[in-house]
């Protein structure tokens, strides 16, 4: 949808949102990271950044990304690609240890070299909700690139029913209001019940 002042975010099909925003530094960081990641694995961005992407008036130190499990070789190729592009792991040094942590279900933090923040809190998928988030992802197309995010209904329900902090409840409210004409209310209720 557009008027003389510019475009408004819109679903251009069931799985794709077009967003004509002026990118923040966080958006640029996320695009830079996911351009590398998407060459190696399926992923989905979840939690706070999803609300910030669609306008929440706050920043965050970390971007939560869930990634399908990778084999040793696949992960080493990905990590080598990251290093070539100026990234490092903030909390662990060796790539063997990083992979072991990921396979044990822990998250690792990846940032641009010499920086701690912003960082990507990177973890392998480990439960059915996270698998579902990857499977039902949305594409968001911005002028600076394309990213994959969790579907909006799941994000709202997860923040309301699982995370529940003041910040998360505000994020959920923001998404619910911004997408109030676009969300599938039946699906949202289903997720709310499922996560209760």
């Amino acid at each position, binding site marked *: 949808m557009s008027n003389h002042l*510019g475009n*408004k975010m819109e679903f251009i099909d069931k799985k794709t949102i077009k967003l*004509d925003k002026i990118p923040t*530094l966080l958006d640029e960081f996320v695009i830079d990271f996911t351009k590398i990641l998407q060459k190696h694995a399926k992923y989905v961005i979840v939690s706070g950044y999803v609300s910030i992407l669609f306008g929440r*008036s*706050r920043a965050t130190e970390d971007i939560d990304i869930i990634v399908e499990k990778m084999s040793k070789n696949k992960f080493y190729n990905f990590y080598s690609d990251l290093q070539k592009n100026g990234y490092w792991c903030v909390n662990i040094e060796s790539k063997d240890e990083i992979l072991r942590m990921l396979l044990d279900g822990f998250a690792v933090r990846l940032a641009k070299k*010499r920086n*701690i923040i*912003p960082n990507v809190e990177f973890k392998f998928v480990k439960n059915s909700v996270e698998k579902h988030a990857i499977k039902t992802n949305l594409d968001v197309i911005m002028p600076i690139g394309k990213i994959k995010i969790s579907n909006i209904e799941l994000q709202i329900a997860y923040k309301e029913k699982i995370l529940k902090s003041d910040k998360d409840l505000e994020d959920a409210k923001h998404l619910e209001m911004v997408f109030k*004409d676009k969300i599938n209310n039946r699906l949202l209720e289903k997720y709310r019940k499922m996560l209760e």
Partner: protein
Amino acid sequence: MNQWFDKARNRKERMEFVELWAEYVRTHPDKNWSKQQKVIVDSQLKSLITPNKKVD
């Protein structure tokens, strides 16, 4: 309620602002709200970023 700070009231006021801003985002072109958001997000992020010791 704390004598100096009413947490419940603060929470309610914060949520009212979240709703007001979300309605603005919903009803205005992306470039309009994102220009304003960029000021907040970039400045918060810049204030958080501290250079780490050199890593090679």
